[in-house]
């Protein structure tokens, strides 16, 4: 059994490498003149590698399922990894509809970042508490993740559209916002890099602090920029926190998570500034020339189509299946738990998106911005709701 867990981890690792390789091959298609409509050889190689990577990750999923005896979608690591996998799956489907190589160049890095982000969380196999012991765990979580993944493809397409279309000759609100999106990507990368770095050195600092009258101990894996409210550093020879986290941040891990957020934002800023210094222009402006040959109308349609395909799946998984399960586990189908509410907000948002698409003037750029906004909400629900607002969901 222990062996199977290792096999599973190895498969995930290989899948990650394959996605990385596929990304570079997709990048190669930009220069390949024959690949206009996905007929080129390089494009075929790239999608083949992507599919092999996806199958490898399916292998990870199955072996981990056998090892843990429940579908591996029960904690933050497992869920987020699965989300990354479904993003690749959604990309493969959309690729075979539209044959746009460029989409791979944008979707796969997002999937890579998501999987890397996931692996920063505890990876051990955890037992299921009674409320999670239901077939609806697999059904609800997998469908919801698949829906979100398809919607995320719309973000990738939207991003291509924005980078391609926004006038970079002068600074404007739009270029600034686009850089904010780029910076968010860098911050995620920053989180992965800084977490890996300190975990390689086995950095550890323990804090003791009171939570609801009880003294508890929490281990930091990153140097504490911010320590817990009224916390006392237990480990010697490590950095003293510069300030204490605000008192309203509740939960034993709130301050630690807040500290991680600060590190990610700072590392992201360093990476971003370095990139700006090297490129000597806005990040989006540097990418823009590579996208010249993309047909903005086609990209716009892909973005819309992904929402059209993803919205029903999302509704089914994140709302309807969720309600059926909640009815069974907690005797009410809806309880206004923060994660539930944010799923509803996501749904409202895409419903608004679909209605706006009916109106004139909401195609193209505005629609692309909405696709980016929708993805931001999905990520907020995945990251921030877990970080700031604890709820009933097991990843909280």
């Amino acid at each position, binding site marked *: *059994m*222990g062996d199977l867990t290792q096999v599973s981890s190895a498969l995930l690792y290989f899948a990650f490498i394959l996605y990385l390789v596929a990304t570079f091959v997709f990048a190669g298609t930009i220069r390949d003149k024959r690949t206009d409509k996905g007929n080129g050889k390089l494009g075929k190689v790239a999608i083949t590698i992507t599919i092999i990577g996806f199958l490898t990750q399916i292998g990870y999923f199955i072996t981990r399922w056998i090892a*843990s*005896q429940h579908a591996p979608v029960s904690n933050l690591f497992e869920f987020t990894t699965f989300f990354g996998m479904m993003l690749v799956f959604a990309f493969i489907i959309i690729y075979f*509809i*539209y044959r746009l190589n460029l989409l791979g160049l944008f979707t796969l890095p997002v999937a890579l970042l998501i999987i890397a982000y996931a692996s920063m969380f*505890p990876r*051990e*196999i*955890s*037992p*299921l*508490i*009674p*409320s999670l*012991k*239901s077939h*609806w765990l697999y059904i609800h979580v997998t469908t919801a993740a698949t829906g979100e993944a398809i919607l995320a493809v719309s973000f990738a397409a939207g991003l291509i559209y924005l980078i391609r279309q926004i006038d970079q000759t002068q600074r404007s609100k739009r270029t600034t916002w686009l850089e904010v999106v780029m910076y968010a990507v860098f911050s995620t990368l920053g989180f992965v890099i800084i977490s890996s770095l300190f975990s390689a050195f086995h950095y550890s600092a323990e804090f003791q602090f009171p939570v609801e009258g009880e003294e508890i101990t929490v281990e930091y894996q990153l140097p504490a920029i911010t320590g817990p409210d009224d916390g006392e550093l237990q480990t010697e020879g490590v950095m003293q926190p510069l300030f204490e986290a605000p*008192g*309203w941040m*509740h939960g034993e891990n709130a301050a630690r998570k807040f500290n991680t957020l600060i590190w990610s934002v700072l590392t992201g800023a360093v990476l971003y500034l370095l990139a700006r210094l090297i490129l000597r222009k806005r990040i989006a402006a540097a990418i823009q020339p590579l996208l010249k040959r993309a047909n*903005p*109308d*086609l990209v716009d*349609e892909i973005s*819309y*189509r992904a929402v*059209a*395909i993803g*919205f*029903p799946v999302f*509704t*089914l998984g994140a709302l*309807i299946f969720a*309600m059926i399960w909640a*009815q*069974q*586990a*907690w*005797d*009410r*189908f809806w309880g*206004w*738990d*923060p994660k539930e*509410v*944010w799923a*509803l*907000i996501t749904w*409202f*948002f895409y*419903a*608004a998106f679909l*209605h*706006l698409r*009916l*109106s*004139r003037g909401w195609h193209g750029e505005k629609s692309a911005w909405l696709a980016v906004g929708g993805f931001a909400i999905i990520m907020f629900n995945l990251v921030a*709701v877990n970080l700031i*607002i604890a709820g009933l969901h097991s990843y909280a």
Partner: protein
Amino acid sequence: MKRITCESCGHVNPEGTVLCEACGKPIEKNQHIDGNKPGKLLNMRYEGSARRSQTYNKSVIDKIWNFFSSVKVGVTLIVITLIASAVGTIFPQEMYIPPNVDPAQHYADQYGILGKIYYQLGLHNLYSSWWYMILIALIGTSIIIASIDRYVPLHRALKMQKPKRHKAFLQKQRLFSETENISNQDVKHVKDRLKKQRYKIKEEDGHILAEKGRFSRWGPYVNHIGLIVFLIGALMRFIPFMYIDDYVWVREGETAVVPETDQQYYVENKEFIMETYDENDERYQEAIQKQGGAVPSNYQTDAVIYKASGEAVTGEDPELEKVKEGSIQVNKPLKFDGFALYQSSYQLDEFKSMTFKIHETDDEAEEALASFTVNLMDPEYEYELDNGFRVVIDQYFPEYFMDDGTPASQSKYPRNPAFVFFVYPPGEDTPEVSFAGIGRNVDASGENDYKVGLQNFEVRDVTGLTLKRDYTLPIIALGGLIFMIGVIQGMYWQHRRVWIHPSDSGVMLAAHTNKNWYGIKREIEKAIEGTELNMVEDQLEIKQ
């Protein structure tokens, strides 16, 4: 009602029509309604049909109708509700704060000035606030009115459409081409190919309409019906008969009446079981250790449901008939007669009875002179003991705690029982006062000859079950189902039409789809392959 007769085909259209229902010719005076401009493509969203909201704007009813028909208004309502919902997650809602605390105090203490404002604005109960309900009701109204406003004329226009279309209609489609000198052979070829792609073909004087997926146009209306059914279901929860939500605690070995059933049903708790994962299980060892405590794996009540039989006589225990026996687990409620019992809470090791002994104060061996057992759920007033002792319970604290120096009880449940006893030694009329509980026996006066000490106790578990009867569930489920059917119908199929129009010199080809232009272009490419027909040009792209 005024009617508009089409100058070209003679079809009589309702007032407010933008494009003739039959031939599609733009009706000149109404082009502003859909924002059609000369030299620009036609707005095909609702087929240029006569929508009430775009036609009448005089009476108050018109104005209200027009307000709710607007997509902009609908989207605005959605966005407002979205923002409101998000605000409700800033701090926990009242139902998620600990019970038995004063909310006003709690929000101010925990979240400072912002928490205080949050509470005072009523945001701690946002989702059940009147204004949130109104927002949902407004969205519901908008869904109904906007749907009727569009569905009726759209349905009419699609039913009335004829294969023979006006030239202007074709020329102003997004996908259009014109080819000169085309053989009938080629046209037939294209027609057959389209048929093979499952287009339905209609012909009229050599004009061809190939159409497929029209039913997808009804998707939005179907899913809106689903939403309305869902909302009606949710609304019906306010009818007491439809929705029952109650709670019952049952001690092991006891039978309790199921609330809200008119004393008809009883539930017996045979055993409550709580299981945890084996900490030495190799599989989960690491995770359990990290968590730093036992991880529960099962909460279960082995229960029996009884039904009272015969006439209920007040003051007498009814005759019970077994209806159902089974285990209630989290995720596995026990259902009977429309009701369901859910495992939702528990109390381990609640005290059932306590046995006390009386011994001499200075006896170090604490040898029992007499003993008595108190049933904690139903203690007696007086106990006559062997050796002539008599004990009277002066005070009973089921869940004892010291409240500013005076003993008090936190609840009526025996979680930490304590007593004040009056002990009458044999032949005495004046009692000695003793205080006894778990781990304490105090001599009130300090001069007692006898002491009361705990000899033994019995415990049992208590299970907390939620009782639900929800007749709205089928309606809500139906709403969800209809919504899913509608949304899939509208999103996964597209309404595609191709028109072939013989003109003086050749053939015009035009096409329209409500979404997925890439898909229809590919189908046309396939259909005209090997013929002389020109591929349609995307006139929108050309403009850019």
